[in-house]
């Protein structure tokens, strides 16, 4: 028989807990209740599913540009009109244009080659965000053939996978997605078996 203690958790609070938006004090009271209330735990599981589905669905649906929205949808703050905002934006663009022409590749992601040797202690290589050409040191690995390479983020979700080629004691693979800042793991598979793992920090 489930044991309940105190009032159940309100749906809004449960949703904010699911999304990690509660303060420490609020988290404490929610988690204490969840320890003893099966009903609220079931509600939280449903909430998690809803939030995950909403995030995925909203990420997949193309978002209409702000300027495409009818003007009545624009918020009005402190007496500013939409016309003034557009004028200021135009001035800024015209002012910034010469600078952007001078530095045309300012925001273009950079290509970097990074050598990963071993997942040992804090000495994981650090690189800047951008495209990565991975060189995975594989001492003792001599069997020719192709290997699978996977890039995992800090939550354990795979971000990219591809084929690597063994050459002179290294497996090389080019990550075709832009890698943003964070802590990552690079996994090397042979015939579906994990044979090496490397740490990588992107700052």
């Amino acid at each position, binding site marked *: 028989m489930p*044991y309940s*203690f105190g009032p159940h958790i309100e*749906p*809004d609070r449960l*949703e904010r807990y699911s*999304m990690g*938006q509660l303060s420490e004090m609020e988290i*404490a009271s929610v*988690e*204490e*209740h*969840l*320890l*003893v*209330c*099966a009903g609220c*735990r079931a509600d939280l599981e449903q909430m998690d*599913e*809803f*939030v*995950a*589905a*909403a*995030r*995925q*669905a*909203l*990420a*997949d*649906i193309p*978002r*209409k540009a702000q300027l495409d*929205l009818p003007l009545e*949808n624009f*918020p*009005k703050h402190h007496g500013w009109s939409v016309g003034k905002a557009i004028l200021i934006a135009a001035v800024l663009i015209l002012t910034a244009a010469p600078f952007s022409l001078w530095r045309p590749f300012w925001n273009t992601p950079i290509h970097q080659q990074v050598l990963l040797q071993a*997942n*040992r*202690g804090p000495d994981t290589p650090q690189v800047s965000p951008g495209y990565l050409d991975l060189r995975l040191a594989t001492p003792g690995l001599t069997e020719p053939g192709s290997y699978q390479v996977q890039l995992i983020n800090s*939550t*354990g*979700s*795979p971000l990219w996978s591809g084929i690597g080629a063994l050459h002179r004691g290294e497996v090389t693979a080019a990550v075709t997605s832009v890698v943003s800042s964070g802590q990552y793991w690079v996994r090397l598979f042979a015939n579906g*078996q*994990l*044979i*090496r*793992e490397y740490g990588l920090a992107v700052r």
Partner: protein
Amino acid sequence: MLAFKRSLEHAVPLSAHRRPQREVVSITSRLRREQSHDKPDVPFLENGEDGQSSAWTTLVRQIHDGDEPAMEQLYQIFSQGIRFYLCRQLGPQELDDKVHDIFVIVVQAIQRGELRDPDRLMGFVRTVVRRQVAAYIDEMVHSRREELNLELTFLPDSRRNPEQTVALRQKVDLMKTVMAELTDRDREILTRFYLNEQTQEEICQDMDLSDTQFRLLKSRAKARFGELGRKKLQHRQLVQVFLRASVRK
């Protein structure tokens, strides 16, 4: 229960010894089997503020005195919640061991008199669980750094299994149907909340909404999502009925 009590006497959580899984299962399954036996009435099962606080005090005192039914009651109250929390934080691996470890720590702490306020037993259990989660994560990070032979290392796959992946995809498709029925403005509001993780206050200020309007929009979306899910489930059940009927023919 006797084996569980013996484990307390040895005063070492399982994680230190890596006791065999079957022994852990026997301890906790014995507790679960004995749930079916008649239990004396426990006052704290009744609601009531004063009754609640004295009930926690009674439970803690009984555990402190080594009362086995009290330990079983503690297990009954908290085991599912602890398991839920651990699974959410660490995944489903070795849950029985971890639940057992936490119970050993909690009971030992109570018996050593470390719980100064018995009314805060829930908070105390939560604190122990969180510290154990931190310790497990720390252990995993260190073992990954120090492990020399990856072939012998078990690295659990944190991705969803294929069934979960399909289930999520179905829910996402339902959600897209819900979102397609909304206006662009309503969809923008939900995008800011669920995807951009803006707070309710920020969204209401930017989009000129009241709190009530914001909550209504979310509850409408959730209700529609639940309605579509139920329709889909009913349709699937109907299809199964027709399939069964056609097979019988």
